């Protein structure tokens, strides 16, 4: 499934996910060394093509590539085809002609990494496309939960927030259900997409019911600009109804952990106190992100030209 890149979790099967996670746990060990570098991808070129700005994810991919000794190039054309008058495919084909071994793509519109991947020879890694998917985020979340709980099978995972506009939600829904967890989503009705159950989740309007018995609670970032889209009346009302704090967390299991893809709007979807300390594991997620992305780059950029090298 991963021969042509990593475009979505939906495309992966359980074996693919297990292979990536196993590899990521090996990679994590590299990050603990004094010299955090291995020669695995020496001579390989990775392009981070970020049409939508993202300091965190881009930095994580960049560090991951560098720890594997790859040459990492960042390219951030900011505007869309519409305003820039250059097609996304032209941009991508231009970079492809420079023979990269992998291209990491983020774009604000769903489907763009796939549209580009259909035209490129290099494998494409989706670093987030619109409200579609963010596969490496879901994989690093799985990795973090495995570390915390020792398993995914049989867990109950509750995702809270603007599910409609969240690529993190979609990827995590696929990732956790494929690995045997029960996934629930909760949020104001205006933030739950049409026929959300078709994704294989249970939907709740009551946070209390959604949290009942949850092992993992994932809060999504609320984009404050959605206020103008009349999706919710005010920050105050959102934080009162769906913002997570220690009092509301009591509805979940005693040993429940709290996750967030970052960056956190403190006091909105997560209380300041909960964002800082356990049971939240936000910084572990970030740490695992580097190892997970190393694993993905190794599996995709590392094997592609193996045959060539042997000649």
């Amino acid at each position, binding site marked *: 499934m991963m021969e042509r890149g990593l475009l979505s979790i939906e495309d992966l099967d359980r074996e693919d996910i297990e292979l990536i996670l196993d590899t990521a746990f090996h990679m994590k060990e590299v990050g603990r060394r004094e010299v955090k570098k291995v020669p695995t991808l020496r001579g390989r070129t990775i392009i981070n093509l970020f049409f939508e700005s993202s300091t965190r994810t881009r930095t994580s991919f960049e560090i991951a590539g560098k720890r594997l000794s790859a040459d990492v190039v960042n390219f951030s054309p900011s505007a*869309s*085809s519409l305003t820039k008058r250059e097609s996304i495919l032209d941009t991508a084909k231009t970079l492809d002609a420079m023979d990269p071994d992998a291209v990491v793509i983020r774009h604000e519109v769903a489907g763009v990494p796939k549209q580009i991947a259909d035209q490129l020879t290099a494998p494409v890694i989706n670093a987030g496309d619109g409200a*579609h998917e963010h596969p490496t985020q879901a994989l690093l979340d799985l990795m973090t939960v495995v570390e915390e709980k020792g398993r995914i099978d049989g867990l109950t995972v509750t995702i809270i927030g603007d599910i409609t506009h969240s690529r993190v939600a979609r990827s995590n829904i696929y990732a956790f259900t494929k690995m045997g967890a029960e996934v629930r989503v909760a949020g104001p009705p205006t933030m739950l997409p049409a026929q959300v159950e078709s994704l294989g989740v249970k939907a709740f309007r009551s946070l209390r019911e959604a949290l009942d018995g949850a092992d993992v609670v994932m809060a999504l970032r609320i984009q404050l600009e959605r206020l103008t889209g009349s999706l919710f009346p005010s920050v105050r009302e959102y934080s009162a109804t769906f913002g997570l704090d220690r009092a509301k967390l009591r509805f979940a299991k005693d040993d429940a952990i709290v996750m967030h893809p970052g960056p956190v709007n403190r006091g909105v979807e997560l209380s300041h106190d909960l964002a800082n300390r356990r049971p939240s594991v936000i910084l572990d997620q970030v740490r695992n992100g580097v190892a997970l992305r190393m694993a993905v780059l190794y599996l995709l950029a590392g094997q592609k030209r193996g045959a060539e090298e042997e000649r």
Partner: protein
Amino acid sequence: MAGRVWLRGGRVLDPASGRDGRADVLIEDGCIVAVEDALAGVSDAEVVDAAGLWVAPGFVDLHAHLREPGQEYKEDIASGGRAAAAGGFTAVCCMANTNPVNDDPSVTDYILDRARKDSPVRVLPVAAATKGLAGEVMTEMSALVAAGAVAFSDDGKTIMDSGMQRRVLEYSRLVEKPVMVHAEDQTLVRDGVVNEGAVSTKLGLPGNPAVAEIVHVARDLLLAELTGAHLHVAHVSTAGAVAHVREARARGIHVTAEVSPHHLTLTDEATLGYDPNTKMAPPLRGKDDVAACIAGLADGSIDAIATDHAPHAVHEKEVEFTAAPPGVLGFETAFAVVLELVRRGQLTPLQLIGSLSWNAARVLGLAMGRLERGAAADVVLLDPTRRWVYDPAQGFSKSRNSPWAGRELEGRVLATWVGGRLVYQQGRGVLVP
């Protein structure tokens, strides 16, 4: 040039008379001079052996975009006319969203002038209902009709102001021409680009809900009832809209409707690969909507199949799904695509031909779409079983935006006559002008 042509032994399908059976058709001096079970003693005629083939009235398209004037890089009246001829169309309505907009008799004149010189098929201009398609000031309908406009529409734009729409419908009674509406409530569509439902949720693309169309159709039906005007609902795509139109017809409201080949045969699942050539407005809908559109066509709630032929250049479609303009090519694939409904037993051949020709002509109040003695010889010869692979690059349109590109289709237009002139022959191409 337009001598005698004897179409011999074909299955003649004439929806106006109800004829469906083996017969001969004789064309002379641009007109049909005989339709009989078996003609004999015809001399000096070019004989076309139509055994095993269908002989039908030339198709009439209520809805197409020829892009001239102003967007000739997508299509022009010459290329669009050629594509139409190759698709079996002998008359096509062209929408007003050109540049400049067809909101003035001078533009209508220009279109008809180009058509006379460049187009192998008849071109029927649809004029804008409001100036600049802005929904604020109505167009000079009398002058536009005098110039040759056959209907009025702000297609592509929606007149959201209900008071304005009421006045447009009311005023149209002066000229007794249909007002064609692109029925989508833009405040419900917002940034929606695919049908709202499981597919939009999976894709993570903004959804365009069925109710956006239904609300607008319901509003316009009430306004048609109030004004007594002829409302024509363009490209119906939802079960709810079909039900409203059916109910309104039963109440005697003067409403007609069309449906596109893509809304009859494709569902929103076609968009799952993010191909911008599956982006239309209104969007491809769910299975139940498609079934309702077919049922509406079969029971007469929907009058006609109209292509909504909407050419866009390759570079305009090879972009992010949200940035791509909506619309697909329609002329050259229409017959083969909708013939599937006959193979599935959902429409009879006569119903299908009627919805492509006579019914469409009746919406416009034009004497077309008939195989009658004395009628202009707008005729098409069809092979309902011929298989072919559609390649837009080999077609006649300037554009290539088709969801059927590379697909094997069954059913082919073999020849098209307009006013007795052979304008298209499969294998030879477009022959005139």
